[in-house]
């Protein structure tokens, strides 16, 4: 492992360990530091986020294009391993501990008490992400129509999203 790859690995490991509450928590810090390192420009950072949206699985796959720009394919792999492996290890340990106690009186009470707060946080995410994702009336119309179709029909989400991507490629160039 060369120095650049090691640097990428350590950077993303630090970002992952700071990302309590999801990858978006460290987005600002990640953008500032990766641009300051000279790994990529701000425009390329937005393109990295777009790649994260286009790929399935956890949205934090946007770390891969950043790592790629920093140190090529080894950098991309170092970013993925650095961001996911330590946090997954910690998560696994804490989930195992939680599973051991979750049937007890207090954990059951905690779960039922905190559920509404989690739901409020989900709605807050809808609001905050919507403010940045929906940039104009057209995107609001698309999002609103899509949510109605999801609610009213049983169309598989991925089919609708792929259809929207195809239409966007044709009509929104």
């Amino acid at each position, binding site marked *: 492992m060369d120095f650049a790859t090691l640097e990428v690995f350590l950077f993303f490991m630090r970002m992952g360990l700071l990302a309590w509450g999801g990858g978006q928590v460290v987005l600002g810090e990640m953008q500032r530091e990766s641009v300051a390192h000279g790994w990529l420009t701000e425009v390329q950072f937005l393109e990295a986020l777009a790649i994260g949206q286009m790929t399935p699985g956890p949205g934090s796959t946007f770390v891969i294009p950043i790592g790629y720009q920093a140190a090529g394919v080894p950098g991309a792999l170092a970013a993925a391993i650095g961001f996911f492996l330590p946090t997954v290890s910690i998560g696994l340990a804490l989930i195992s501990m939680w599973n051991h106690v979750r049937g007890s009186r207090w954990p059951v009470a905690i779960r039922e008490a905190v559920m509404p707060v989690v739901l409020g946080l989900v709605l807050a995410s809808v609001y905050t992400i919507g403010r940045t994702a929906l940039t104009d009336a057209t995107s609001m119309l698309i999002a609103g129509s899509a949510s109605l179709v999801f609610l009213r029909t049983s169309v*598989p989400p991925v089919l609708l999203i792929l259809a929207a991507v195809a239409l966007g490629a044709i009509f929104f160039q």
Partner: protein
Amino acid sequence: MGHQAASVYRRARVRPEGTSTGAIRRAEQPTREASGSAPLSLPPTEYRPAMEAAQPVAHTSGIVPWPDLLLAYLKLGAISIGGRSAPYLLTELVERRRWLQKEDFLEGLLLGYVLPGPVGASCAMFLATRLRGPRAAVPALAMYTLPGIALALVLSVLVFGMPRPPWANGAIYTLSATAFGFFIYAAVRLLPGTRKTRLGPVMVVGAFVAHGLLAVDLLPVLIGLGGFSLLLNRPAPRQAEGE
């Protein structure tokens, strides 16, 4: 025990939409405990059909066969585009396959919020442990993340190796808006899940206002409002339970 648990799984499994005919046939076959050859010794609440939505959480864990579990997670890992994968866990594992209940999903989200790293990954690991025990977390997570990691690597080479064509901008624009529509859908589907909690709707609004409108950090909201809600919904003293 493992076989018994698998029998429970087969008995409990409802007909999920899109399940193969073979799987449905297997689900409809009489199980050992049903035919009387092996009396069911598990507690009756060990695994219940998710259609019994009124059942409280912690009653849904059972044993899903490895191939079904891994294929479900591989499918999730291959289709959950849009940058927010957790809602796909809700639609696939709770609504489509009916392996879990909404409360399990919300519990997974809660863990995702309080653990470091991607919310979807923590939620996926937790739900895998609910479906097949602690050993399922890592293989399920691998199925869930590897397709995306491979595709992100390929797209990185393509996007940064050449100028982006104009059609790609349009595709990303509609992808972003439609994926956000899916996010709205998942949030709406979760709304009825707070009825059991005392002052649940107030907590929902409070968390939304604090984190969404006032931009208070996530952890203070979880600890502050969650602690207050726990105070209101604390378990009854043990003496009272026996009465």
